[in-house]
């Protein structure tokens, strides 16, 4: 029986991508707990395996053996479909992320757009889950998620448009290739295109924190006021899948920052580029994301919206105009 090698390649990448997303979700929880513990002068998980390394496995088994409770009064279809809607787009985004020179499942010409398109479905999943739960905490959380995502999608997309004007392509592979040869070629230091590039990176990073609902912008699942926000009614692996989706989104956000601003798989000194460098930069950004969560307290809701509408959006538009002027003049 003849099987097309392309199909085998796609299947291999599919399995690899799902495994990568799941492994990251499991071990980022471990990293988060360890890092939080050390920041608060505790030890963190240490009983299961060396340094508590098998803790995620045990947690996963625990979540899977728990009963999936569908409370009376919820909308059963929407309630069950919501975790899937959060997880699947995240996995689809991985398809076009180039981890290395040849390590990419599908090198799309409009890969950048693909990732933002799939990322926008994430909100829909949270909204449907929250509304389907028929829970007041969940509905409040959903209202916050929407206003937060609408507010932060604008500066993020404007920053990305600025970057696309400089690179002239939406192909992620080409964007990385343009930044090869040492850290002074990276887009974050591309000062000749726009002197505000480091600021653009900062805006992108802040928006990524807000889009993935991480502290200090975790209004959507503020534990101390909304129980667990949109996930309040979920138990067992339903809850687990939401968390996997959330961590997968953090991985995607960090990968995007790495690809767009930090030169992807390029080595800072221009020697031996490879997948390793991509992973180092990505995990450093993820480490920073967790670091920020355990350092800064949660902002107020109005503080969050003010930051976006009054500071980030004007600066990103100014950067857009400045960049287009610089591109036209030089």
């Amino acid at each position: 029986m003849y099987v097309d090698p392309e199909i085998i390649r796609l299947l291999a990448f599919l399995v690899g991508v799902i495994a990568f997303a799941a492994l990251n979700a499991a071990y980022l929880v471990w990293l988060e707990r360890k890092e939080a513990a050390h920041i608060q002068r505790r030890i963190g998980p240490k009983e299961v395996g060396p340094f508590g390394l098998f803790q995620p496995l045990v947690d996963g088994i625990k979540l899977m053996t728990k009963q999936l409770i569908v409370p009376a009064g919820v909308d059963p279809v929407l309630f069950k479909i919501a975790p899937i809607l959060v997880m699947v787009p995240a996995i689809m985004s991985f398809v076009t992320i180039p981890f290395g020179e040849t390590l990419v499942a599908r090198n799309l010409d409009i890969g950048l757009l693909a990732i933002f398109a799939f990322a926008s479905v994430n909100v829909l999943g949270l909204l449907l889950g929250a509304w389907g739960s028929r829970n007041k905490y969940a509905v409040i959380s959903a209202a916050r998620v929407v206003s937060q995502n609408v507010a932060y999608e604008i500066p993020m997309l404007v920053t990305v448009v600025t970057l696309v004007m400089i690179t002239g392509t939406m192909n992620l592979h080409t964007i990385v290739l343009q930044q090869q040869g040492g850290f002074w070629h990276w887009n974050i230091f591309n000062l000749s295109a726009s002197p505000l590039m480091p600021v653009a990176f900062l805006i992108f990073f802040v928006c990524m924190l807000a889009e993935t609902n991480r502290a200090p912008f975790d209004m959507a699942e503020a534990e101390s006021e909304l129980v667990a926000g949109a996930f309040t009614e979920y138990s067992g692996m339903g809850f687990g899948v939401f968390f996997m989706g959330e961590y997968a989104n953090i991985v995607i956000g960090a990968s995007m920052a790495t690809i767009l601003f930090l030169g992807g798989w390029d080595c800072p000194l221009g020697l031996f580029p490879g997948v390793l460098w991509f992973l180092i930069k990505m995990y450093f950004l993820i480490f920073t994301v967790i670091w920020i969560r355990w350092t800064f307290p949660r902002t107020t809701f109005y503080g969050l919206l003010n930051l976006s509408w009054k500071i980030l959006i004007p600066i990103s538009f100014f950067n857009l105009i400045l960049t287009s002027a610089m591109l036209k003049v030089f």
Partner: protein
Amino acid sequence: MVSLLTVEGLSGLLFFGFIGITLAGAIIATSARSLIRSVAGLALCFLGVAGLYYYLNSPFVALMQILIYVGAVCVTIIFAVMLAESSELKQITSRNGLVGPLAFLASGILVFALAGLALKTEWRPALCMVNRGTVENLGQSLLTTYSMSFELISVVLLVAVVGSLVLARAGRDK
């Protein structure tokens, strides 16, 4: 007969999948009792249409369909419904007994006409590819060939933004 284990075979199967998704989404959107389920059906329908666009060799339009219709329009509709809808589901009763049969008749005629048109037309593949639909092509056509429509759309959007601001202001003063 193309084997299912080749790229062509699988993509053919996916094509029918997308048609099915579009139809299923449309049926859910029109027949669901709860408004939120209708919107979910609408989102499903949009996803199916995005898949069809992808098969028509325009991945850019397909992704824009997802980004704008699923990610923005459906989310906005759900948000509006969540703020406005009372939890009781109102049963819509038609006053006139003739409405149902007439609707069926009208949609039947429409389906018949469209199907006839589709079957009678001699379909030819495009002779050549106009361009690759990249961002560059798109920008050039937006600012040259279609600059008038582009400007008009921006004016419409501007009016919408200013109008919503005026409405929101009026509400705040009360």
